[in-house]
């Protein structure tokens, strides 16, 4: 990786950036492939369906500076109850730990600069390369491609076949910088039959304006199971763009949980692609924009393989003058017979100025499927409040309990170490604009 700072994203600068990368050819190839598509596209505008309700035209993306400064990784003691940790600050990787014996079993938890230095064995590198290339192919907007061109730092997690780990890996991105573009990338590859979970935390300092353009790519091998927990809590001066793709193999399971709380503007997207027969995906999401925050989320359940099952449950509350947008799509390919796919979006309006848009869509290109979607948007149910009051709860306490409960269906799945913080964030926001 290169240590220079790049002041813009003109084609010339991006080409120069790529040429300066000291990394394996396969990684550079990903950047080049992304750049080719990048050149052919315009920045998203409100003419694009995905960005119709989220205006990013004022960002001047090309003028954001970026850098990719590596740091020496310190090996630290691994915490009890965790399979491994990787902690980054800005683009530097600070610390790493791995539970005893996992390295010998073939588990790799590497920072992007280690990957650049050739840390991955050829077989793993091929898998990571193919995962990234697939995402470049999948990318249909310039922001996502921009990410794959710039990838400034990140992590790669590889778990070998049939290894089952009950404790989560924890990957943490901290950032205290101001006025910079970051393009963190996480690649998670579970080989055949591997079963494990990952907690991905994206945080920032209280101040400092970041433009975060993240990529999350998860490949669940046949019969494997990956549970991925995203928790994004950056400050309200910053902007978060996140694009993810999960590929679910034959009889494999992906549970992708996303808690999107931060960013004055957050544009989040995750696509789950059911490529194998009998795959299973669950996409659980929570969001709770407050103040004048704007959070836009999109999920896609894409069924290519037969007899696969997928379920999306996204739950959001909006308070103050905040605005949320949720777009969910179930897309069933003509070969995906006996698909079973559901999509639910529930929104709670907690302020008279708050707004929640919900747009669930089905696109079904075959017969013999079971698909449905449902969406609700409304205030807290008065009957629920009355019931709790009849048990002695004050109206305020009833309201708190109901809102916490509303999110609980998704949050309850998060690893223990994340629970307190998630509940505190929700609790703090409930109290606003009362």
């Amino acid at each position, binding site marked *: 990786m290169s240590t220079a700072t790049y002041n813009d994203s003109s084609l010339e600068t991006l080409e120069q950036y790529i040429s300066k990368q000291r990394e394996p050819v396969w990684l550079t190839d990903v950047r080049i492939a992304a750049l080719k598509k990048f050149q052919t596209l315009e920045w998203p505008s409100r003419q694009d369906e995905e960005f119709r309700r989220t205006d990013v035209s004022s960002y001047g993306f090309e003028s954001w500076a970026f850098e990719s400064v590596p740091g020496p990784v310190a090996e630290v003691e691994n915490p009890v109850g965790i399979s491994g940790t990787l902690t980054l600050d800005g683009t530097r990787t600070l610390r790493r730990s791995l539970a005893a014996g996992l390295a010998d079993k073939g588990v790799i938890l590497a920072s992007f600069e280690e990957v650049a230095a050739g840390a991955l064995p050829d077989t793993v590198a091929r898998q990571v390369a193919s995962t990234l290339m697939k995402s470049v192919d999948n990318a249909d907007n310039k922001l996502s491609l921009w990410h794959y061109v710039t990838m400034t730092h990140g992590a790669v997690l590889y778990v070998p076949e049939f290894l089952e780990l009950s404790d989560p890996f924890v990957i943490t991105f901290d950032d205290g910088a101001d006025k910079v573009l970051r393009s963190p990338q996480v690649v998670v590859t579970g080989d055949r039959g591997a079963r494990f979970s990952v907690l991905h935390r994206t945080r920032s300092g209280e101040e400092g304006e970041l433009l975060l353009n993240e990529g999350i790519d998860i490949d669940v091998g046949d019969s494997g199971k990956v549970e991925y927990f995203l928790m994004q809590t950056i400050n309200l001066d910053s902007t978060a763009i996140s694009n993810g793709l999960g590929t679910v193999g034959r009889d494999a399971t992906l549970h992708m949980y996303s808690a999107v709380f931060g960013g004055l503007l957050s544009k989040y997207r995750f696509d789950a692609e059911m490529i194998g027969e009998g795959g299973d995906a669950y996409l659980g999401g929570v969001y709770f924009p407050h103040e004048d925050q704007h959070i836009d989320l999109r999920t896609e359940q894409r069924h290519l393989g037969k007899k696969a099952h997928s379920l999306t449950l996204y739950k959001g509350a909006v308070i103050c003058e905040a605005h949320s947008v949720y777009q969910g799509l179930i897309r069933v390919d003509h070969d995906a017979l006996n698909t079973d796919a559901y999509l639910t979006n529930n929104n709670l309006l907690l302020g008279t100025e708050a707004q929640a848009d919900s747009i669930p869509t089905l696109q079904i290109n075959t017969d013999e499927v079971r698909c449905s979607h449902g969406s609700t948007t409304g205030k807290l149910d008065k009957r629920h409040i009355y019931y709790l009051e009849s048990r*002695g709860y004050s109206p305020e306490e009833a309201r708190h309990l109901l809102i916490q409960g509303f999110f609980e269906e998704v949050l309850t799945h998060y690893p223990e170490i994340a629970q307190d913080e998630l509940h505190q964030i929700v609790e703090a926001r409930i109290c606003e604009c009362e």
Partner: protein
Amino acid sequence: MKIEIQDLQARIGDIEILKGVNLTLKSGEIHALMGPNGSGKSTLSNVIFGNETYEVTGGKILVDGEDILEMETHERARLGLFLAFQYPVEIPGVTVGRFLKRAAEIRFEGQKDRMKSFVKQLRANMDYMDINQQFINRYLNEGFSGGEKKRMEILQMLMLEPQFAILDETDSGLDIDALKIVAQGVNKLRTETEFGALVITHYQRILDHIKPDYVHIMYQGRIVTSGGGDLVSQLEEHGYDWVKKQHGIQEEEKNEHAASRT
């Protein structure tokens, strides 16, 4: 606890439902309130609990001499009143254990020793009500059958030990086994604590298992007659028409509706 309902009048929208209800209830007494559909029984229970869907247009409800009509629902509950709902709501994301623990903390505020034995007591009461212990971790009423919801209401009542409870058609939709369990819960509090209840019902059935001290019959928003337990069998024998004849009740509601439209 003494509850005195005096000339209580209430309406929902333009429709007058309670037209001067007078009733005195005390801890230590079991009252049955019977009457046909639409006579105002559920309205009465909701008005006692301050449900804001109903507008009180006259009268008083005194609890130990204090008028509670200006109190909020939770303040009334904290006096030691309990309402077993006819249709308990489902509360997603809130477990039975979490919900009940906090409710018990509010009810028994300042009694630390009591909260220490909360879980033990909860488990014992669940056994008593024949509720699977795993329900502690289930979301309140979510996916429960009708009978399970009703038993859950009575479990809550056992845990919160009210001084006076209103059971709003808790028996409706229950099979005989579930009905017996519900009655068993009421009788437990009746024998073990200073407990009173107003059992609202259509049917005699539940009153075979919870013997009332007093029976009241409600018709068109008023209590038209009151008596002892024997009133139940008279009603069962002769039906509500008998009550109407006895008390000279006219079908006044239709006329009123006509009047309100003009």
